[in-house]
């Protein structure tokens, strides 16, 4: 690219009232850089970008390949599935067990996700359907929830807390992971702390300032799909109860796309600090959440993470493709340039 500077021509000033002022600005002669897109500029530019992208792409691919992922579908649509019987009738507290084995060490920390497909958490009306003020712990909104929550605003004349479709449809399958060591089941400890966003846990969601928490919920109903009220989500840990329950927070942060996974637990403790060792495992699922009606699926995912998040081949490939395209383009430009012999303005 060529730099071009204009010089203002100075004329002697007369005593003329109407004479426009002779400045670089008013005469439109400001020093200007002219981004002429010529071959001479673009060839090295493309080459440089291309090479850089290929480099990044290789790095991304390697990183992505190094991530281990284990996905297990437990929807139970197929008869062979251990959870098949849970889909049959509307029996409550159906428990099914999923067995799997890991060949090599699954490096820690291992993240344990549950995943749903064909689930539109990003639907507009669904997304609107909650009451911020309730969730920030404002008790006055417990009595009269926002109309946004319709049709999950009231039940039997009583206000629902937390109201709205998002809270109402909270994912309620629970999981327990056992490693089978010598035929015996050993519980793999799950770490449920800090799986939600810091801002959600500390700022956006607050429990009302009541002790016991239950008192704040007088004259309110629990969401219709819920089996227990909000103040009983985790009675063992006050800092994980009510609206600041981690699972609740994770659920309330709506997924961007209809096929998503959400963090359920992390495996960071005890013998499993360095990951899941090779061996046989059994996942005990308390199967509650209905997805078959809308042709959705449920799955669990074990994954470890890198600096770029979970496993993703796409980005690495994209970088490689774009990078090599840039290189190809610069070669094309070079050929064209040689053919037309564009005189470079110097």
């Amino acid at each position, binding site marked *: 690219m060529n730099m071009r500077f204009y010089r203002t021509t100075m*004329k002697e000033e007369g005593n*003329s009232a109407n*004479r*426009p002022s*002779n400045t670089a600005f*008013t*005469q*439109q002669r400001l*020093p*200007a*850089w*002219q*981004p002429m*897109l*010529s*071959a001479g500029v673009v060839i090295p530019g493309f080459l440089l970008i291309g090479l850089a992208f290929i480099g*990044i792409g290789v790095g991304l691919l390697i990183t992505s390949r190094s991530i281990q992922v284990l996905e297990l579908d437990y929807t139970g649509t197929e008869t062979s599935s251990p959870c098949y019987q849970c889909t049959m009738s509307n029996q409550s507290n159906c428990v099914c067990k999923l067995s799997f084995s890991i060949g090599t060490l699954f490096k820690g920390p291992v993240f344990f*996700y549950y995943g749903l497909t064909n689930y539109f958490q*990003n*639907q*507009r*009306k*669904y*997304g609107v*359907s909650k009451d*911020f*003020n309730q969730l*920030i712990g404002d008790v006055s909104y417990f009595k009269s929830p926002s109309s946004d929550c*319709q*049709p999950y605003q009231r039940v039997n004349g009583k206000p629902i807390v937390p109201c709205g479709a998002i809270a109402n*449809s909270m994912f309620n399958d629970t999981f327990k992971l056992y490693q089978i060591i010598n035929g015996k089941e050993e519980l793999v400890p799950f770490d449920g702390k800090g799986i939600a966003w*810091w*801002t*959600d846990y500390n*700022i*956006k969601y607050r429990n009302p300032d009541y002790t016991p928490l239950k008192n704040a919920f007088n004259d309110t109903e629990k969401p219709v799909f819920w089996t227990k009220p909000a103040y009983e989500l985790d009675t063992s840990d006050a800092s994980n109860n009510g609206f600041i329950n981690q699972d609740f927070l994770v659920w309330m942060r709506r*997924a*961007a*796309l*209809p096929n*998503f*996974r959400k963090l359920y637990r992390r495996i960071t403790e005890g013998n499993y600090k360095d990951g899941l060792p090779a061996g046989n495992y059994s996942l005990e699922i308390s199967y509650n959440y209905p*997805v078959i*009606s*809308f*042709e959705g699926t449920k799955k669990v995912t074990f994954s470890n993470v890198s*600096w*770029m*998040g979970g496993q*993703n081949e796409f*980005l690495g490939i*994209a*970088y490689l493709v*774009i990078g090599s395209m840039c290189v190809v383009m610069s070669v094309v430009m070079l050929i*064209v*340039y040689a053919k*037309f012999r*564009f*005189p470079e*303005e110097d």
Partner: protein
Amino acid sequence: MHSLKLPFHIHRERLPRKRIVGPSFAEDEDLKKVLKSYQSNKIRTTKYSFLSFLPKNLFEQLHRIANIYFIFLAALNFVPVVEAFQPEVSLVPIVLVLSVTAIKDVFEDFRRFHSDRLVNRQLCDLYSSAQKDYVDCCWKDVRVGDFVRLSCNEIIPADMVLLYSSDPRGVCYIETANLDGETNLKQRQVVGFAPQSDSQFSPENFHSRIECENPNNDLNRFRGFIEHASGVRVGLHSSNVLLRSCTIRNTETVIGIVVYAGHETKAMMNNSGPRYKRSLLERRLNRDILWCVALLIVMCLIAAVGHGLWLKNLKDPIFQVDGEMSPALAAFYVFWTMIIVLQVLIPISLYVSIEIVKLGQIYFIHNDLDMYNEEQDSRIQCRALNITEDLGQIQYVFSDKTGTLTENKMVFRRCSIFGVEYPHEENARRLAVYEEDPNRGASRTVTLKSACSRKSLTCRSLSCNRSSVSLHTLTAESGEEDQLSSHPQAKTDVVPDPALEKKLNSLCSSLLHLSDGLFKTTSNLELTYITDFFLALTICNTVVVSSPGQPRHVVSGPARTPLKSLEEIKVMFQRLSFSPFTTMSTPQMKSSPRSFTSRLFIRGKSGSLTFPTPTNNSPSCPNPEPESYEETNGSSGEDSEDELLYEAESPDEAALVHAARAYHCTLRARSPENLLVELPGIGSLPVRLLHVLPFDSNRKRMSVVVRHPLTGELVVYTKGADSVIMDLAERPKGRKAPSAELYSHIREQTQKHLDAYAREGLRTLCIAKKVLEEEEYDVWMKRQLLAESSIENREELLLESAQRLETNLTLLGSTGIVDRLQEEVPETIEALQRAGIKVWVLTGDKQETAINIANACKLLRSSDQLLTANCDNKDACAALLNELIVEVQCGQEGVSEQREDPSSGSTGFILAIDGRTLDWALQEDLRSSFLELSRKCKAVLCCRSTPLQKSKVVQLVRDHLRVMTLAVGDGANDVSMIQVADVGIGISGQEGMQAVMSSDFAIPRFHHLRKLLLVHGHWCYHRLANMILYFFYKNVMYVNLLFWYQFFCGFSGSVMINSWVLILFNLLFTSVPPLIYGVLDQDTAADALEEHPELYQAVYVPSIFWITILDAFYQSCICFFIPYFALAGSDVDGLSFGSPINTSALFIILLHQVIESHTLTWIHALVLFLSAASYFAFVLLFSTFCIVCSHPTNLLGVEPRQLSTPLFYVICAVTTVTALIPRIFFRSLFNTVHPSALLTKDQRQEAASESYRRRMQRWNQNHARTGLPVCADNPGLVPGQEEVLS
């Protein structure tokens, strides 16, 4: 042709209803009531008052369809079932747009308010009946019927009828510069009302009633009468009226009664403010917006249908909110929701942005130093604010000739009297030398300094002298003085032709020395012709004489004593008037000249002008030797004479008076009824001026009726266009053979000379006279008075009356006046033609003159073929047109065959068509062939065209060829053309401001057109066109991101971007860079554009819009799907998903701008940086501090978290690069394959101009050898006649 003003009626007059005015302190209650009903003198040009602003401004803004659309959208968002954002979010855009516009309006209105207040608070002397005296009073308190006293140099506060002037002759001088820009003084006359003109005027004694027409905007017309208490009615006309905002000059005190005040004054009614035109681009823009609307509807329909299908296929999902709603209804609601969500697709801020950008462009045009004229101290005026980009698409330029291409500064060149040509060789030489000067001198522009336009009027004391220069003293500016001193006389002065001078001198010498040999060679008849000719030159005009040395404007200076032999001369003239072909007239005057003089003055009504009794008896007849003029000139006796200042309404008048003066026929003084004329060898003579029939463009002539100072006969002197005068001049029929022969010989000779003058490029005028019988005059006089005093159709009556008088004229001779080309006119025309603009010249001049000028300004080259079209009837015209078309076709084929020499490509056809033929050609059935012919021609000259024809031609071309037209002119006769054209340009030159006032842009000189069109026009067009494209691109690109998301959220209308960010993205974060781009971008440097006018013709293909839209689609796809695939299946939440998309979009949109920009200055850099910074600042602040706001797209915690994730940057980088790479690639590929148009053109052009210069040199040499007359205008560029017509 003549350049006097003519009234141009913009509005056909309405039914004449009358207004009655009387003294405001009259007891008459009815009159008082009537007077009260008239508007006061307070002016208010503001649109709004403090209270009315909000409703009125809102109401006005709501008239725009775009605003209504956005209000509809805002309202839609308040409907709960379809609402997409929180209601207040969707109010933001419309409120922002409305308030920006409102602020702009307030600002403009405040400026108007401020200037109104200044004007309203000016003081003037108003007569108060209570105090019986004049008291100071604000302008705004002046009412109709008030008496206002004004002193010298005061500005007139309202339109008034002049009742009293301190001038003993009852005249007053005003300068109308504020009104129409004319700086010459105009004379106004006290209403002729008998009783008390001598005594001091007292309003108390005024009991007359004025009846006049209702307010109108015609500056040159005032019709009415004043009815005195006695019942006598005296007609009023425009010379009795002092118009608001003119300035009193050269008169101590005047008193007038206000007839129109405030907004009803002519000045205010003419002040229409800036013009609003819709530019072509804006019209195209509306079409593109309609496409966007269509696109929006399609996208919303897709979403609606998609949502309906999606809902239908869902079977009772747990995330369903209201399952009862039928899919069809839900789809219907979604349609409207999507309209709200995707509203950004219609660029809401585009209209406001365009307005702002145009203001910026106007600012830069207005401030361009290259379009500043030092001599006039004037710069370009932009009167229309919204058609800047039309300047960049002009295809046809229609130009006036006089004053536009030429200077309109006339210098007498040569004349022919009695059929004898006086070539004035010396004069020609001097003019030529003068013309050459600038090339030797330091600066080229110095020669063109117009002293006339820069004269400053100053008043010393009450006596009101005009201390500065006037037309005849084109003062040399500092650097030029040395050169000028070598010339014997000032520039406008004329070097007399020796032969003519000899003959003229023989007039006096023959009387002094009757035996002189000269007398024998010059017949008495010829001598009377010559005398009459110069007398006509001296008196047949409206020139105002003033002298800086005298307190009064009229010079009553040392009158030359009439000779002792005056009696003899008189006898000679009387004897000569018995000439066989002039009508016999009995000598009316038996008394001595002195008693004749006194009798004249007694008859004069004012009677106040008394010329000092001649005391000096020494004859001042110039030495009969031809060389003597130089000595005489140097002698002290001439000094006082040199100080005479002539103020003429048109430059050719002044030129003729100066010419006469060179022959010692000097106009020494003028009063309304008398002229003091000095004749060589006779001395000062008073001439009784009976009538002036002023110039108008229909008659194309003016006449004066005088009593001849020597013979005492009533004589009509007429001066006018040769075609008219030649027709009016009597034909020698049925008369005695020898005189008829002589007369037809004179006619023939004169016609021959006229043709030669015209070929030489001179402006020709004919001078004729007629001797009136007393009875004849009396009859005519009655009709004339009747016409003058009538209110209705006065113009027609006056015209008819004048035509009755101007018949059977005797042709005296003709004059040729040089009108120099303005500087750089040939270069400008050449540049315009190279830019692909066709230049037509529409002139009232003769065909020969027009062709010559065309030659001089390179419109017509030696290689071009000239086609002339002069027909007498329609059939001939039709045949001729067809014939010419065939000829042109043959010619063009011939040219295209021998195309091997690139420089011969300039061969073209020039059509010269005269007014009469043009009339036929403009008729319905011949139009198409005329257009076809003219389209094939390189240029067209329309000669002898009337103002109406000019506008018709422009209209025809504009409407039928569907091209962008520009009309440029300087005079009132160009007004209609200027108004009809898409872009009207006025030259703010010599001829008043009417053209300027009706124009869109006013430039000081013609050559400014070059930069205005080629540089500013080109820039403005490219800037605006690109900015608009960019706006569409930006909106389509951004909105599509939301559209793609609909495919993944069940078409439910949800968004992954915070709604505030969504709305403000277009309004704030990315709105300023395009504005800067639209104001500052320079696709090509100014000097390159000027050097290579071909660059002007960059054509815009309509497909560029669709290419842009396609690119926007591509970019939005990349910008959405790369993050999509990168994040699909992960635990990303909605807003975190939107964050990299939005950030990439910001970068893509800003960098796209950088790619599109041709220049980047620090301003660009700063604005780009601030735009990006404002986005990040906003989202970061929003996601830190906004806890419960903007549900459901609450950003809390999103952005800081994203910005700390490496993945975010990885995604943004690849997205931005991928989105922009195709554009960069194709751009650079294009630049490489089509190496900058500029460079190749450069080389081609160099060769062409080189060969042209060589050709011109060769040609010049040839012509120098053949010794053809070389035009002083443009030495070396005027080919001989045979060449032109070949």
